[in-house]
């Protein structure tokens, strides 16, 4: 999986390409934690090129969502395909995450 970050004034766009599974999710955690810890940016996750998310990936997403919220920021997910939406629905996280 590749991770591409673009910093805007108040938002960081994070584009993922590949599979968000057990091995790659720790890499994403390392990239996202410093962003929400700083509390300066909203995070927009671009899933246009992401194939799927397993539970290890969900853990990072939930963690990031909570981290942003605690700092008064928002994590938004865009471009999620049907496989990713299925995982969000099954896990009950469709109603938790901001998905556009």
């Amino acid at each position, binding site marked *: 999986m590749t991770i591409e970050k673009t910093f805007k004034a108040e938002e960081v766009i994070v584009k993922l390409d590949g599979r968000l*599974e057990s091995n790659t999710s720790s890499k994403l955690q390392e990239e996202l934690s410093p962003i929400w810890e700083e509390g300066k940016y909203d995070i927009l996750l671009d899933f246009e090129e992401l194939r799927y998310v397993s539970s290890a990936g969900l853990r990072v997403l939930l963690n990031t969502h909570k981290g942003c919220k605690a700092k008064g920021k928002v994590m938004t997910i865009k471009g999620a395909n049907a496989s990713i939406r299925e995982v969000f629905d099954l*896990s009950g996280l469709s109603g938790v995450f901001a998905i556009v």
Partner: protein
Amino acid sequence: MNELIIEAKIENIDKVLSFVSEHLDDCSFGIQNQIEIAVDELFSNIARYAYNPTTGGGAAVRVAVNEAVTIEFEDSGVEYNPLLKEDPDVTLSDDERGIGGLGIFMVKNMMDSVEYRREGHKNILTIKKNLGS
């Protein structure tokens, strides 16, 4: 069945996914993704919990494709039946939510059958996904 014998560690998940996906050319994109998610959940469980982390151990992953895709995971670690794990409450608010138990819950929902058996000192978990479903 085609078989991959591999050390049970998280870094090997790529190799396991590549091995399995070689057999999934005839599956739809959606089914391929469901199967790969299940493989990630089950192999990572073995990698994390089956063995003492300092000594480690091996796992076998077997795949057969006919009218269904059948995948078998075998390890010689501690006896563990993930199907006995209680389903998580997926209706909690974000503050109360964790991810514990969600992996096996998703596998049960996405596959057509998930079976566990203990054979001697081995854990064997078999998942099946009907093609065309």
